[in-house]
């Protein structure tokens, strides 16, 4: 009870302070607020630079993708590293390594109505998922590859691809998914993803430019002009992100659903 009183006080203070700060804000949706148009006396507005110059710099119509993978590509690389670290951390925390005789066998309590084993091999679910999974994967690949022109990109596509494997594990069982995408494979794939991303960066360094300065890759990619080199490199980078995200999303699910044993699953 005491903790609830304390929590209420702390939360009310926090909320009050935040609202006190909000009072100074320009109205919601104001196109001339500082984030949208810069401040008077400051430099050129970043957001307006992105909107007006991105296509000139990179030939990528989806500004979000361009900013994500090029202007702020360093953030995105470390974001991928965060995902990778999470996969590793979950392995380190939960994975039961070695050939155990399953001491963590579930106790079937009465309220665990979910754990009726028979549910998994139902014919309707099985058949539907068998049809749907390839479509999900195809859509995932499209999202990765078409992220320049439409919403999407490495993360979204990677999550879709990863969730297609999760769907496989849900509709049949975890082993069926692991047969197609084993633990060794997904960790290799995850590391390869980051390697691809960072590889693009280091390639630029080898060509004596800064890390992730894709423009210089035109010599290697044989594109006309640095803009197209940027555009193509972004695709490569997104593919790397998609690799890592696919692998780690599935690995997180596999570990969480089987309590780290990678057996049975849900």
């Amino acid at each position: 009870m005491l903790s609830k009183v304390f929590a209420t006080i702390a939360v009310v203070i926090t909320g009050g302070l935040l609202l006190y700060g909000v009072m100074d804000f320009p109205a919601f949706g104001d196109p001339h607020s500082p984030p949208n148009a810069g401040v008077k006396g400051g430099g050129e507005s970043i957001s307006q630079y992105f909107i007006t110059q991105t296509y000139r710099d990179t030939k990528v119509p989806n500004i979000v993708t361009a900013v994500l993978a090029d202007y702020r590509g360093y953030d995105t690389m470390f974001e991928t590293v965060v995902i990778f670290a999470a996969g590793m951390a979950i392995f380190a925390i939960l994975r039961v390594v070695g050939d155990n005789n399953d001491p963590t066998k579930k106790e079937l309590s009465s309220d665990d109505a979910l754990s009726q084993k028979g549910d998994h091999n139902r014919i309707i679910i099985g058949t539907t998922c068998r049809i749907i999974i390839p479509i999900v994967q195809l859509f995932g690949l499209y999202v990765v590859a078409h992220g320049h022109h439409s919403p999407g990109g490495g993360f979204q596509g990677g999550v879709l691809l990863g969730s297609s494997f999760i769907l496989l594990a849900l509709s049949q069982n975890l082993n069926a998914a692991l047969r197609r995408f084993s633990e060794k494979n997904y960790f290799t794939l995850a590391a390869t993803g980051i390697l691809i991303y960072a590889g693009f960066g280091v390639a630029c360094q080898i060509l004596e430019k800064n890390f992730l300065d894709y423009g210089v890759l035109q010599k290697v990619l044989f594109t006309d002009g640095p803009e197209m080199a940027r555009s193509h490199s972004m695709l490569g980078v997104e593919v790397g992100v998609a690799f890592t995200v696919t692998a780690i999303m599935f690995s997180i699910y596999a570990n969480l659903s089987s309590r780290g044993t990678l057996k049975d699953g849900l």
Partner: protein
Amino acid sequence: MVEFFEQHFNFWIYVILMMIGLWAVIAKNNLIKKLIGLSIFQTAIILFYVSLGVKENSTIPILDHHAPAAEVSADPHHNDEPSETGNHGELHPKAGHENDHHADAHVGAHAVEPDTMANPLPHVLMLTAIVVGVATLGVALALAQLIYKEFGTLEENEVLEIIKGGEAND
């Protein structure tokens, strides 16, 4: 006051969601509930950031590079805008300057008026934050499972009692 409420409606809701989430993180006893609270807290922050980048009557930040030039600038709303603010006038020369760079066919489409598009930067930042959020959630859920395995419960007070009991036995 009413005007303040109306103009900042999104920010009000963000603060309320943040308060709900933070309250759950501190006060809830069940670990899973704490994590749901934490996720709500994080989405509230994401809502705040996305609200920063919203512009009235704007479209999504994807250029329509296949469209003919006229379409973008034909929007009647923008014809009278430069007179509204001084800041605005400065941008036109730049857009014109950009036109010089491009002599190709779609030139009008990329000489885009900044006010017609949502600010892309908060979106980029929040993509990162969402992904970081799910990574944290995964780690926290793994720890919750481990706690359940070792203590047989997910209620914080019971966990603390078991720890205290164990200490007394030592």
